[in-house]
């Protein structure tokens, strides 16, 4: 009956992964990806893989959204600069 928590974790991963694909704007997608990373870490814990969950937490909760948002920032700023020159 510990399967109930595994089912809950799998459902959460499925829902947040679908949401990550469905959200189009990169800034909002970064928010969903942060939650997806966390939910994946919970899934790994529930499947008795705490080392993998630790690595997932370290990477997915702060690093991935940071990289994504920094890339969006740079692209938007360059687009704005070229727009002014025109």
């Amino acid at each position, binding site marked *: 009956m510990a399967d*109930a928590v595994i089912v809950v974790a799998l459902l959460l991963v499925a829902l947040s992964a679908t949401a990550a694909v469905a959200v189009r704007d990169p800034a909002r997608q970064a928010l969903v990806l942060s939650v997806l990373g966390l939910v994946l870490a919970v899934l790994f814990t529930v499947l008795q893989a705490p080392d993998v969950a630790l690595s997932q937490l370290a990477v997915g909760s702060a690093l991935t959204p940071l990289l994504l*948002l920094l890339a969006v920032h740079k692209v938007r700023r360059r687009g704005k600069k070229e727009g002014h020159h025109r």
Partner: protein
Amino acid sequence: MNGWILAAAVVLGGGVGATVWGVATGPLRRRVVAQNLCTAFACPALLLLSQGYDRPSYVDLALVLALLGPVGTLVFARLLADELAADPPSAWGLTYAAAAVGAVVVPALCVATGPSRAMAKLLVVGALLIGGNLLASRALSGAFPEVRRG
């Protein structure tokens, strides 16, 4: 299957499920609050799982999450500062509710663990969780001008 794992399943299904829905729909204001609160719900769930599976090493996961979760929210508060300044999020009711979940789970686990270094570790994780949650919420609602200016 014991009560701890059941409680963890309830906190995950209800709390983190609600934050998944909140981060996928609605205005930006609601999404950042949901991202902040998913840490506040997942950390007690991890502590409950650690007790339920009888593996004290899983508390390290909750510790790392309690430290890195607010850092992630601060990243969003800094890099989305312009869009949030126009429409600042203020969901203090939800924030205090999430803090209350942590405040209920941590003493219950401390009682189950009994006085020892493990209980001190649980208390440190609880303090980091609640402190980080409140700090990140304040940063989101624009209380730190250094975060806005950068």
